[in-house]
């Protein structure tokens, strides 16, 4: 070394980098992906592969040929967006629809704003909501189509356990949230609905396929959550405040009228709530940076989710709730941290 390196302090770095954070999120999403592939067969894998490849490709093409810069896909953020989009889609989504979702997510929600770190809304959620509004039929069709990738051919539990297996039937209709939404609207009560459909909390926890890929198993999401906490990628504040708010909100309604409202555990375990609380609401770029902001944001998502679930048109409202609170994030980031106290504290 002929010349000395001269750069100001600090002279060491924690070795933390963006790519490693993204890799941790990918690892945390793996249990959810694997469980959905286990239950829904290769059709689930197809959705995941198309979604990830689509997001990476769209970002690469935009950066390379529209922005004319060095490609940014190696930071793995597009892979994360692709995975999150995939776990938000029904297993039966046709490949072209997934691809449109990728273009909406990366092309519109992420790159238009300047790419990583600049987007206002969670890209994967924009992709999902774009598809939900554009293709309502396909997006709420939870049955598995009869292609080569159909569950009949590839359903591993069925192959392993035989047709009489204890696990749920792969072909099914509406989600539990959809069932109660429609049932209650048609004048049925919770009692008759649960007699009719036999909602099993065990199934919700361990695995079923009525819903998007990632909604298959609450436990898989919780395993991912534990991993993210362990790796210190996220703080528990946002997910916990969302889940707590939903629990309190639904408990109040349930206590007021159990015949017309589902119980808190039902609300916590169904739909995309856990998935949204753990993987989407905690997205760094689109969530607040200070604890008070995080708390308001989490409570806001919880309240919005419940309002949409109970009184809205859609059976599920987590995506809309998160996107709505994403819009408030810049405002929540204006909350100034409290400095060391003006007067001397005698603690």
């Amino acid at each position: 070394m002929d010349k000395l390196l001269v750069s100001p302090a600090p002279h060491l770095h924690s070795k933390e980098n963006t790519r490693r954070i993204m890799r941790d999120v990918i690892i945390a999403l793996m249990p959810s992906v694997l469980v959905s592939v286990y239950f829904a067969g290769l059709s689930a894998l197809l959705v995941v592969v198309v979604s990830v490849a689509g997001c990476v490709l769209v970002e690469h093409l935009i950066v390379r040929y529209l922005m004319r810069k060095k490609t940014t896909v190696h930071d793995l953020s597009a892979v994360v967006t692709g995975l999150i989009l995939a776990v938000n889609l029904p297993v039966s989504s046709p490949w072209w629809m997934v691809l449109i979702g990728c273009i909406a997510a990366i092309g519109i929600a992420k790159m238009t704003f300047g790419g990583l770190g600049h987007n206002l809304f969670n890209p994967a959620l924009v992709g999902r909501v774009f598809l939900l509004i554009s293709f309502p039929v396909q997006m709420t069709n939870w049955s598995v189509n009869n292609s080569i990738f159909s569950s009949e051919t590839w359903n591993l539990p069925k192959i392993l356990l035989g047709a009489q297996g204890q696990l749920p039937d792969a072909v099914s209709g509406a989600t539990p949230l959809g069932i109660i939404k429609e049932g209650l609207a048609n004048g049925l009560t919770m009692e008759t609905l649960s007699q009719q459909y036999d909602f099993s909390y065990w199934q919700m926890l361990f695995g079923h396929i009525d819903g998007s890929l990632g909604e298959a198993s609450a436990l898989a999401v919780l395993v991912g959550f534990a991993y993210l906490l362990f790796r210190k990628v996220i703080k528990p504040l946002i997910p916990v405040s969302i889940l707590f708010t939903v629990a309190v909100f639904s408990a109040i309604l349930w206590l007021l009228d159990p015949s017309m409202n589902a119980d808190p555990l039902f609300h916590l375990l169904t739909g995309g709530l856990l998935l949204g609380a753990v993987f989407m609401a905690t997205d760094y770029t689109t969530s607040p940076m200070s604890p008070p902001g995080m708390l308001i944001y989490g409570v806001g998502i919880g309240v919005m989710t419940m309002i949409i679930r109970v009184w809205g048109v859609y059976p599920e409202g987590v995506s809309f709730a998160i996107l709505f609170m994403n819009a408030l994030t810049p405002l929540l980031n204006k909350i100034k941290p409290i400095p060391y106290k003006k007067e001397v504290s005698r603690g």
Partner: protein
Amino acid sequence: MSKTFSIGGIHPDDCKFSRDCPIEDFPIPKRVYISMNQHLGMPAVPVVKKGDPVRVGQLIAEPAGFVSAPVHASVSGTVSDVTPYPDFLGKKVLTVVIDTDGDQWEEGIDRSPEIRHEITSSPEDVFKRISESGIVGLGGAAFPTHVKLTPPEGMKPEYLILNGAECEPYLTADYRLMLEHGQEILLGGELMRRTLGAGVNGIIGIEANKPRAIELMRELTSKSLQWKVVPLKKRYPQGGEKQLIDAVLGRRVASFALPVSTGAIVQNVSTAYAVYEAVQKNKPLISKVLTVSSSDSSIQKNYRFRVGTPIMDILSHAGAMEKDGGLSPQFAKVVNGGPMMGKPVSNLEGPVMKSTSGLLLFTEKETKRKEPGECIRCAKCFEACPMRLQPYLLYQLALAGRTEELEEHRVFDCIECGCCLYTCPAHLPLLDQIRLARNASLKNKRKK
């Protein structure tokens, strides 16, 4: 239960490789370069001229005001020049150059190793000796100690905290000093405590990664009513003045307030040792202990050096220099101080100063900055900031040159600890920009 400060902080690997290396006396160099800018405040004014013979401990420069400190010859010999000479940063500062000849000490300096326990000087005499001996804060800031021991009108100190945290990775100079000269440090602390008036309690704060020092200090203070040891959790920047007061007393220094407003005065353990030597041994501040360290196990030392020794001499004695005078090729960077707050050395011929606590050698792989990416707003810098600032925001405001907003977001509270830059996953030069913006805004203020 170990205590710690309440906001932010990071946990870098402590890398205290040289913890078991006893302090060695560094050989007297052939020539020393004694800068007149050894301290914060006004540079000292030389009282010797070219050709003057000097002895070790002789006054060679007088303070230029209250916030300033005198400077003494660290070797004996002849003054070969009084001239602007580039320091370790390459900046020219007025320097007294002395060619060494033997080791002749001034009369009256007690060089025997016996510890003088009995305190005979009055508090006024102690204070006078401290200011005459050129003692400055040896934790790194080099603020004249007598100024710090003079709290402003109306502020009554209740505690004297001796800072033995040494939270910077690699550095072990304070640790070795505590192990080898624990009694002297306590005596120095006691001398300072007495100058602060009656009713002041003494506390020694030491991080938990130095159990032997905690044990020894506990033993030494076991019979004392005025002194106690507070073990602290390992966490950076615990040795920061404001963080240490928070950790030890649970009191927080407000924005722009002096630390003494909380009733606490903080002094480094090395400073306490210097006070002991000045008062009890009549020896001015001419030497100090520093750590030379690197990931190479053959280059890990603790030296007691004479102020003004060229950095090159120390590195070459430690085995980090080539025969032709260049730095050993495995290393790319030399840091004066700790890895978190130390300054990069750009001139190896520059001298070490009174407050130099370490010379660290880093390989390119260890220290080279990575290409900065995009801020992903992960808020890790905000979580790490011990002053509860928003480094990501200050960075953006600094880039945009929005001075007023920078001040609104308390940019002047920044203690430049480097936690933000250390944690940033995007490797953004957060602190660099904040520092630049702050200096620019300070300059503007001075103009007005």
